[in-house]
Every structure is written in C-alpha cells, then in structure tokens.
C-alpha cells in the first residue's frame, strides 16, 4: 500500500484503474465472436464462393455492386475470402495453440515438478525443437504428409491438418518452456512445501496447487500465440506450404501481394482483419490475465 512509485502513472491501484474497461472487452469479444460465428456458419452466408473467379470483374474497388469489399485481381470476392479465411485461419491457429499448450503445458509442469532426468529430457526436447527453424519443420512435414501418393491421389493428409500438426510442434516448446518456468517458481512456494510436509501426494499437489497457478499465465500467452500463428501461416503461404492461395487470411495477403500497388484493398483489408483479430486476442489475453490477478489478490 505504501509503495506507490512516483515515476510511473501506474500503481497497484493504477492497475485496477487501467484494467481493460468493459467497452473494450465487449468490442474485442464481439469481434472474436463474429469471427468464430463466421468460421462456423460462413457457408450459409449469401456470398459468392471464395475460390471462384469472376473473370469479368477483376480488381473491383470496395463497395462495388455484388461485391461489398470488391474483388481481387483474380476476380475472387474479397468478403467471401475473409469469411472462408476465418475458418482456415482461426481453425488452424486455435487448434494448434490449444493442443500445443495442453501438451507443452503438461510437459513443462511435469518437468518442473519431477526435476531430475525427466526435466533434463523435456528441456532438451524443448531446446532441440526450438533450434529447428519453423520453415524447415513445416516444409518437411508438408512434404512428408501432405503429399498424396501418386497412385492414390486422395491419400495425402489435408494440408490444413499438416499445418496444424507442424504449428503445434512449433508451439509446444514455446509454451512448454513458459509452463516449466512458471511451475518451477510456484513449486518453490511455501504452500507447496506445506502440502508436501503434510504428506499430500505429488499428483494431488500438482492438481490442486501447481496447475491452477500455472494455467493463468499460460492462457494469457496462448491468446497471444494464437495471433502469432495466424501471421506465421500467412508467411508459409508465400512458400507454397501454407493454406491454398486465398484460403486463409494470411494466404489472401500472400496471394495478392503483387497487386499491392494496383488493388491495394485486396491486401489492406485482410491485413486489417488480421490486425483486428490479433488485437482482440491480445486484449482478451490481457483481460484474462488481469481477471486472474484479481482473483489471486482477493484470496
């Protein structure tokens, strides 16, 4: 209470004051809800198909008849692209981050709590996979799994699935390291020692003391990671290993990048949508973190 620093405008109470206000929260979650809704029910919207080219309407500007957000220079409808892209981008990013944080989180927590050789092995795994570049990993994964056997062209795994797997592999060590660090600091706290001293089983200590405390910071970072994955996927699209051209927000950007000077809206609009989503995810993550901080402080 006493130690309000003079230097910053933030103080302990200041944080409370600076908590994301309800308006921002509603805006952010509203945007995410719209995106998620679109991802699920986009097919029912009365729109042209995202991957069909309207050959007579190349590069229509915004607010054209029949094409609300115009078309790109290939004649595909930008709005339908965004609607379809919501499913691909969010699907890939949310799934990869969710699975990645569950696996990474568990590995990290177990490593931190068991210490010894388990910790060494898990940490080594994190370091090794961090040292392998994302691009190499994804290129190899796509070559390995997303390539249909020529004798049976329907045999390869869907590209999106392979992307999810490789991005999950990218996420695991990042969130895993975070979880390990956080679990390490929590497991040194007094209440854990107390629990141990009264003979509580390791597993129940993990369940009741460590995991609930590690979870909040993991979740706030996971929200950020979800945003980052949306962006990474766009970068992969340029190398031809991302989603098909125009199938995700990132690949819309990648596909239309050459026409930036000619039909700027076809890059700016998807970039704006990605930006908004990443911002909303960040906001949500922040809100989440502060809510949890709040909970802790009330205990």
């Amino acid at each position, binding site marked *: 209470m006493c130690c309000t620093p*003079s230097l*910053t405008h933030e103080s302990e109470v200041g944080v409370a004051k600076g908590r994301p206000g309800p308006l921002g929260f509603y805006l952010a979650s509203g945007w995410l809800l719209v995106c998620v809704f679109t991802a699920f029910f986009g097919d029912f919207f009365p729109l042209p198909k995202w991957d069909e080219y309207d050959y007579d309407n190349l590069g229509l500007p915004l607010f054209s008849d029949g094409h609300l957000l115009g078309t790109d220079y290939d004649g595909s409808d930008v709005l339908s692209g965004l609607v379809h892209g919501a499913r691909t981008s969010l699907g890939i990013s949310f799934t990869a981050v969710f699975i990645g944080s569950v696996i990474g989180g568990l590995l990290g927590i177990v490593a931190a709590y068991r210490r010894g050789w388990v910790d060494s092995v898990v940490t080594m795994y994190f370091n090794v996979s*961090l*040292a*392998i570049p994302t691009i190499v990993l994804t290129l*190899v994964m796509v070559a390995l799994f997303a390539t249909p056997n020529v004798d049976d062209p329907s045999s390869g795994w869907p590209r999106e699935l392979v992307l999810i797997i490789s991005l999950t592999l990218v996420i695991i060590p990042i969130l895993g390291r975070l979880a390990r660090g956080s679990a390490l600091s929590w497991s040194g706290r007094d209440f854990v020692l107390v629990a141990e001293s009264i003979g509580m089983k390791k597993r129940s200590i993990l369940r009741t003391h460590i995991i609930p405390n590690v979870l909040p910071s993991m979740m706030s970072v996971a929200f950020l990671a979800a945003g980052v994955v949306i962006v990474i996927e766009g*970068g992969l699209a340029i190398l031809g290993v991302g989603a098909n051209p125009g199938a995700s927000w990132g690949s819309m950007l990648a596909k239309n*990048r050459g026409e930036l000077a000619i039909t700027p809206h076809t890059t700016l609009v998807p970039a704006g949508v990605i930006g908004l989503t990443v*911002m909303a995810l960040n906001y949500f993550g922040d809100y989440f973190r502060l809510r949890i901080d709040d909970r802790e402080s009330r205990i």
Partner: protein
Amino acid sequence: MKYRVALKNLAKAVLVLFLVTFSISILVRWLPGDPIEILMPFATEEGRAALRAELGLDINVVQYYFSWLFDLLRGDFGVWYASTGDGGGVPVRSMLAVALPRSLLIMLYTMVVSIVFAVPLGIFLAYRAETRTDKTISNVLFAVSSIPSFAIGLALAFVVGVQLDLLPVIGYVPFAENPSEHFRSLVMPVVSLSIGLIATFSRLLRVDMIATLREDFVTMASSKGLSNMWILWRHVLRPSSSTLMTSAALQMGALIGGAVVIESVFALNGFGMLLTTAIATRQYLAIQSLVALIAIAYIVFNLIVDVLYAVVDPRVRGGRG
C-alpha cells in the same frame, strides 16, 4: 564452481546440436522421393552408385550421420548438386560464402535497429503505463506486428522506393563496395523485418519495466532528486531487460533462416533462400549443413545471452538468482 556450470551448459549445448542435426538427418531421409532420381536423373548405373555412396544411402543413418559430421568438422559442408547435372555441382561452402554474410548482416542490423527503437519505446510506454497514450501506442504496435513482414516490405518498396523515390527497391550492395549504398540497399528489408520485432520487444520491455518501476529502489532513486530519464535509463532498464534478451536470442536464430520471404522480395538472396531451395531440390548434404548452422547460431546466441545476463545482473555472476 562457476566453471563447472559453464562446462555443464556447454555440454548441454553440444548435446542439443547433436540431437538437432541427427533428427534432421532422419527427417531428410524420410522425405519422399528418391534423391538419386532427383539429383541425377540421367546418370549411368556407376554414377548412381557413386552418388548413392556419397549421400550415404547405402549405409545406415547412424554411420552416415557421423561421416557427415566429420566432414562438417573438417569444414566440408558437402556439395550442392546442379539441379539437372550429372552429379557435379558447387561446394555448399562457396554458396554459403555468398549467402551467409548477407543474412548475418541483415540479422545484425535488424537486431540493432529493433533494439535501438524498441528500448526507448518500451521505456516510454512503461513510463506512461496505462495512460491513453500507452494504450493507443500499444494497440497500434499490436496491429502493426500482426502484418507479415513481406506485406510491409512491398508497401515500403512501393511508397518509399517508387513514389517517394528515396531508396533502392531491389538488390544488395556489399559494404566494401560502397558503404553508403550498402546501408541504403538494406534499409527497407531491415525496416520490414524490424517493425514486428520493435513491437514485440518494446512490449516485453514495457511489462518488465512496469514491474521494476514498482520496486523501492526506484522511489529511492527518485528521492535522491535524479531526473526521470536518468532513473529510467540507469536504474530501471538494466534489471528489466532479461526477457528482452531471451527473446532477442531466439529471434536472431530465427532471422537467419526465416527472412526468406524478405530476401526474395528485395532480391537479396541470402541464407533463407538457400535453405528453402535446398529442401525443395533435396540437396541432402546442404540441408543438413545449413540446419546445423542455424542450430549452432541458436545455441551460440543463447550462450551469449547467458553471458549477458551476468553482465546485466551481477547477482547471476554471484551464483544467485
């Protein structure tokens, strides 16, 4: 005691290096398609057998790995086979001699620029934490950091390069050839890569600095009558920089191979393009050597950061913390 810790870290680093290169050996072998067919589609039987032996396809992966490793340790990075050649090619080392310095410089400049801009920005945001200024800038930074670098690069090329006619839009000029052109040729690529990093770094720094600003020693410094700028730069920055350094080390490794898209846009033709081409054309030896270099870079930067931790925070030197 200290030396033992250092040795232990070094041993771990070597083990990581070993595991990375070994797993790449295995992964590369799994890649679909017979490399002989790809690298030497029209060779004679003897030629095929020779290449098969050279690529170690006739021995098991462990033997092959070690023979590659010993070659690498001797400085032999393998051969880059001409795409439709008869098994002849260019040494990977001579390809690297062209590509690696470029990528390292781009990485270095990007880091310097990102940090030079991110640090004051992070300090400013922490100083103004939770004010409207902070929130506005933070949100803008987030939006900007979510735009992929290639989009920023192309937009810059068009606006700064073509419309304002300020900078060259393509090409790389070596420093030795013309220092000022060298910098000019790299401004846009470096800026495209930096913008996202500036956003990331300044936000990381902001969070850590806000925590540090709550420390008593900041109030103490303030009560000594020191100016805010002095306190922020001299008292708060250093104890708040560990996350930033960790993140920077990770990014450096990633930038060397990961700038491929920017390399392509600005016709810089560095390490990233080499790597992706190597994978697409199944340059087995090259892939392994290139990935090994990235892993080495990753490890070296992490070791450097460990040393920097000690420079920045004396408690680490003392064996605490």
